């Protein structure tokens, strides 16, 4: 019986010991798993372009991970992140803005969230990163230190800039196309150019028009400019003023202007607005304008058809 009691006790002890062993083993396995998870996490952070840095307010690095080193582009310089311990942040990067800007934010608010931060790597490449951090106590000395997570967003930034540049280029190209469309210069004969105006004329277009016309006069050595306003349906004082300036500018360039294609409505408006265009030669249509321009240059149109009829 006593044997039996003893054996019972023994069995119990053994059972307890076995249980303890299992718990220990479980702990070991758990610890192992933990380290694996943390290793995986570390790898994940690295791939995602995220890095962690622990540093003092004076910039001294306490610990840094591989991800952060990757962002700083220092992986090849410091293969072991522990080698960076004790270095200053200023040794790892080149400040582009004011030094300590971020640290003053952290000191004031106790944390920094989603702060866009740009810097240059020691090798000279510009980097953008998002910075999140908060202040913790050093486990041994108790002083305030900064725990920061930085995310590299350089690629996104560059892609954005590229996108913006492309968009700007498209806009510019379209604007150029519209400008060219809106102010064509048509050389009809030696010394005569026609400039048809279409649509509304604002001050921006008027300036463009004036420049194009001046360039056209120089290019074609024009002595007469026919400004055809058939395509202008509405006229106000502003437009008349712009046209006036254009005509004066053409004159200073040595060319005289004939305005053609004034519709009934436009003529009415001009009179009603009390605008004096008496000094400017205006004709009803382009045909009349062209004939007047030819006459002024001493060129005459002669029909050859009538000559042949007579010779027959």
């Amino acid at each position: 019986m006593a044997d039996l009691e003893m054996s019972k006790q023994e069995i119990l002890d053994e059972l307890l010991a076995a249980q303890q062993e299992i718990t220990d083993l479980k702990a070991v396995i758990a610890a192992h798993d933990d380290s694996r998870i943390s290793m995986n996490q570390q790898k994940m952070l690295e791939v995602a372009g995220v890095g962690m840095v622990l540093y003092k307010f004076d910039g001294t690095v306490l610990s840094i991970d591989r991800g952060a080193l990757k962002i700083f582009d220092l992986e090849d310089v410091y293969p072991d992140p522990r080698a960076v311990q004790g270095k200053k942040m200023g040794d790892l990067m080149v400040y582009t803005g004011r030094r300590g800007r971020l640290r003053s934010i952290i000191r004031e608010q106790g944390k920094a969230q989603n702060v866009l931060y740009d810097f240059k790597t020691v090798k000279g490449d510009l980097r953008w990163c998002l910075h999140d951090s908060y202040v913790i106590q050093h486990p041994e000395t108790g002083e305030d230190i900064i725990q920061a997570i930085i995310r590299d967003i350089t690629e996104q930034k560059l892609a954005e800039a590229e996108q913006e540049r492309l968009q700007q280029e498209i806009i510019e190209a379209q604007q150029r196309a519209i400008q060219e469309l809106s102010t064509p210069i048509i050389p009809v004969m030696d010394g005569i150019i026609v400039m048809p105006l279409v649509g509304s004329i604002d001050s921006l277009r008027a300036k463009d028009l004036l420049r194009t016309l001046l360039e056209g006069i120089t290019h074609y050595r024009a002595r007469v400019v026919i400004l055809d306003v058939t395509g202008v349906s509405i006229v106000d004082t502003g437009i008349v003023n712009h046209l006036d300036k254009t005509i004066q500018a053409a004159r200073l360039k040595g060319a005289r202007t004939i305005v053609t294609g004034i519709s009934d409505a436009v003529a009415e408006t001009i009179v009603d607005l009390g605008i004096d265009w008496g000094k400017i030669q205006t004709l009803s249509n382009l045909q009349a304008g062209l004939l007047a321009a030819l006459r002024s240059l001493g060129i005459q149109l002669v029909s050859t058809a009538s000559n042949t009829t007579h010779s027959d």
Partner: protein
Amino acid sequence: MFMDDDFTDDAMSGVASTIQKLEDLLLVTVPRDLMDDQVLSLRREVVKHIRLYNSLWVLLDFSQVDICDSYFGRFIQSMANMVRLTGARVIISGLQDAVIETMVELGMTLPDVRAVLDLDEALAMSRTNGKVDADTSETELAELSFLDSSTFDFFEV
């Protein structure tokens, strides 16, 4: 006898070379940066040369000028008035696009000064209308415009 000492100002030394005779024209190349004191001496020198060569036209060539202010407009106007008193006429040429733009914005349209594109045009004009007497009136002169006078009146545009 025309080289009076009165006219040979020190300020003129740099300007004199810009006045040249070209047939009936007196070609005046206006320097890029015309100083106030140079304007006075340039005006005098031009009038002196008109008398020397019996020039009928004074061509002010502005191809070197790329800056324009209100003083610039007054310079052209005063030059035109002074030249007219000696029986010749002022033509301006070679105004740059940017200068014209500014002039138009400032309202300096110089309504009674004839403008041409460049020297070629000026020469062609002076050849066509070469025989302008000193006592030709303003209206007669206007009718002698380069283009057919029955259609246009250049001094009116």
